[in-house]
C-alpha cells in the first residue's frame, strides 16, 4: 500500500521534472535546456533538503508542528552569514571563494544550532515553550542580522541581502555542486539512520531503553538537519512553512511514520510541490516569483489549523 503510493509519488516527481524542462521550450534549445537543468537540480535539492530535514527535526523533537525554520534555524544561518561578513569585513567576504564561504557558513550554522538547541532538547522543555522560544529566536536573529548589516555598511547593506521570502526563481547556481555534495552525504546518512529514527520517535526514555544513545544520536541528527537547512537557505533563501506543508502532506499520503517510507515520501513530495509549483506558476499563472509567497501562505494556514485542531484533542 505504502509502496504503491511511494511509486506514485516518484512518478509524479518525474512528471513534474519533465514538465519543468519541456514546457515552452523554444529558441536556443540546448542553452535553455542547460539553464533549466541547472535550476531543476537546485530545486530538487532544495525540496529534498527541506523535506528530509523537517521530518528528522520533527522526529527528534517529538512534535509534528515543529520545523527547523519555525525554530529559527534559517534565520540563524543568515545571522551566521552576516557574522562572517562582520568578522572578515565586507571586502574580505566578497573576495572569499564562494565554495569556501559556503563551507564556513555550514560549519558555523552547525555549531550555532547545536549550541542553542541541544540544551533545549536536553532539558525536555514543554513543547509550546520550545516553539515560542524558537519563533522568538528567529525574530531575534533577523533583528541581529539587520543590526549587523547596518553596522557594517549603514548606507547600502547589499553585501548580504535577505529577502523576506524565498525566491525559487533566482537560485544560486554557483553553489550547486558543493551544495549537492553536502546534500547527498547528508541524505545517505539519514537513510542509514532510518531505523534509529524510528526508535528515536518513541521518545528519549524508550530510545535509551532500547539501547540507543540519546544524546549522541540527537546531536548527530541536529548536525545533519543544520547542514540541510544551510543548503536550502543558501540556494533560495529562508522558507518558513514549506517544510511543514511537505511533511504533513507526505505523512498523509503514505499514512506512516516509518522513516524507511516517510523519508523518501517527504523528499518526493518536496520535489513535486516545488518543481510542479514552479512549472505551474511560471507557465500557467505567468508569475514565477509568487510561488514562495503562496507556499508560505498555505503553509502558515496549515500550521494554524494543526495548532487549533491538535489542541482540541
Amino acid at each position, binding site marked *: 500500500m505504502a509502496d504503491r503510493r511511494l511509486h506514485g509519488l516518484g512518478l509524479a516527481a518525474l512528471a513534474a521534472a519533465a514538465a519543468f524542462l519541456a514546457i515552452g521550450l523554444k529558441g536556443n534549445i540546448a542553452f535553455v535546456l542547460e539553464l533549466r537543468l541547472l535550476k531543476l537540480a537546485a530545486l530538487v535539492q532544495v525540496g529534498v533538503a527541506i523535506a528530509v530535514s523537517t521530518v528528522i527535526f520533527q522526529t527528534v523533537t517529538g512534535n509534528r508542528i515543529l520545523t527547523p525554520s519555525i525554530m529559527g534555524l534559517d534565520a540563524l544561518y543568515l545571522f551566521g552569514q552576516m557574522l562572517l561578513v562582520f568578522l572578515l569585513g565586507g571586502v574580505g567576504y566578497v573576495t572569499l571563494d564562494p565554495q569556501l564561504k559556503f563551507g564556513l557558513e555550514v560549519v558555523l550554522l552547525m555549531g550555532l544550532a547545536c549550541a542553542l538547541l541541544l540544551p533545549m532538547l536536553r532539558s525536555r522543555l514543554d513543547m509550546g515553550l520550545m516553539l*515560542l522560544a524558537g519563533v522568538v529566536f528567529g*525574530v531575534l536573529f533577523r533583528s541581529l542580522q539587520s543590526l549587523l548589516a547596518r553596522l557594517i555598511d549603514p548606507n547600502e547593506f547589499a553585501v548580504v541581502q535577505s529577502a523576506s521570502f524565498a525566491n525559487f526563481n533566482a537560485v544560486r547556481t554557483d553553489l550547486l555542486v558543493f551544495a549537492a555534495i553536502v546534500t547527498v552525504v547528508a541524505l545517505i546518512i539519514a537513510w542509514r539512520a532510518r531505523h534509529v529514527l524510528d526508535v528515536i520517535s518513541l521518545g528519549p526514555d524508550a530510545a535509551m531503553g532500547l539501547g540507543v544513545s540519546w544524546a549522541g544520536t540527537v546531536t548527530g541528527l541536529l548536525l545533519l538537519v543544520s547542514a540541510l537547512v544551510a543548503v536550502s537557505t543558501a540556494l533560495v533563501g529562508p522558507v518558513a512553512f514549506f517544510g511543514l506543508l511537505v511533511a504533513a502532506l507526505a505523512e498523509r499520503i503514505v499514512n506512516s511514520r516509518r522513516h524507511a517510507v516517510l523519508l523518501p515520501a517527504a523528499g518526493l513530495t518536496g520535489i513535486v510541490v516545488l518543481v510542479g509549483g514552479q512549472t505551474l506558476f511560471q507557465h500557467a499563472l505567468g508569475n514565477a516569483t509568487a510561488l514562495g*509567497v503562496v507556499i508560505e501562505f498555505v503553509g502558515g494556514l496549515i500550521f494554524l489549523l494543526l495548532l487549533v485542531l491538535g*489542541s482540541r484533542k
Partner: protein
Amino acid sequence: MISAVSKPSLWTGLIAGLGLAVLFVLSLAVGVSPLPLNKVLSDPEAMQLLAVSRLPRTFAAVLCGAGLAIAGLIMQTLSRNRFVEPATAGTAQSAELGILLVTLLFPAAALWVKTLVAGGAALVGTSVFLATAHRLPPQQPFLVPLFGIVYGGVIGAVATFAAWQADLLQFLSVWTNGEFSGVLRGRYELLWIAALMVAVAWIVADRLTIMALGREASIGLGIDYARMMQIGLVIVSVITALAVVIVGMIPFVGLAVPNIVSRLMGDNVRGTLGWVAAGGAGLVLACDIAGRLLRYPYEIPVGTVMGVVGGAVFLWLLFRRGGHG
C-alpha cells in the same frame, strides 16, 4: 484603587521620573547636527532644529513607547495571556495590510483617513485573533502567542504579496520597521491620540484588572464584559494603527514592559498603568538614542534595535518562567 498597599515609594517614582527626563533631554541633544542645549535659546537656528525635528521626534518616541506598552498590557488582559502583544497577535500586520490597501486604492487619501482604515483593519484582525485565542486550551499558555505570531505571519504574507504586485515593498518596509528619523513637525501630531487612548485606559483601569480575572468573575461583579472587550480592542487597534502609520511598528515594547512591571508590582492596573506607560516611553527613547549613537553619524532604526533588545528580554522572561514551572 486600593491605595494602602502596593504603592512604590515616592523615591522610586522620583528616580524613574528623573531617568525619563534625562532620556528626554538626551534625545533632544543627540543627532547628526550638534545641538548645544545651553545655546538653544539664543541661537535661532538651533531653536528651529529643536522645534521642527528633535522635539517632535522625542515626543513621537515617548507617545509610541507609552502607547504600545499600554496596548500590550491591554492585549495581555483581554487574552489572559502574558506573552501576547500587538506585534505578535496580528494587530500590527492587519494595520499594515489595511494601510497598504487604502494606499493602493486611494493613494491621495489624507493621513487621518489612512490611519482610520488601518485602525479598522487592526480591529478586525485582532478580534479574529482573540476569538480564536479563547478557544485554545488554557493549560497550554504558549499556544496563544505562537498562534498569534504565525497568524500575523500569514496576514503579513498577504500584505507582502499585495505590496510586491503593486511595487510598494518600499512602503511596506517603512510600516513594518519602526523608525523615528523621518518624524518632523506637522507629520507626527496624530500620535497624540495615543495619549488620549492611554487616558481612556486609565479611566477603565479597574475594569481591566477585573477583566483579567476572567469572564465569569467580571460578569459576577457587574461588568459589561462584551463592551469592555470592545473598548479594549479599540484602544489596542488605534494605538497600533497610529504607530504603524506614523513611525512603523516597534516590536516587543508591549511585551517586555508590562511583564517586567507585573513582576515588580503586580497586576492591579490602576497602580501599574503609569509605570507601564513610563517604562514603554523610556525603553523606546533609550533604544532610539542607542540607534542614533551606535553607528554615528548614521542611524539604525529603532525597530531593529528593539528587535534585538526586546527579543533578548522576551527569551529571558520565557525561560525564567519556564524554570519556575
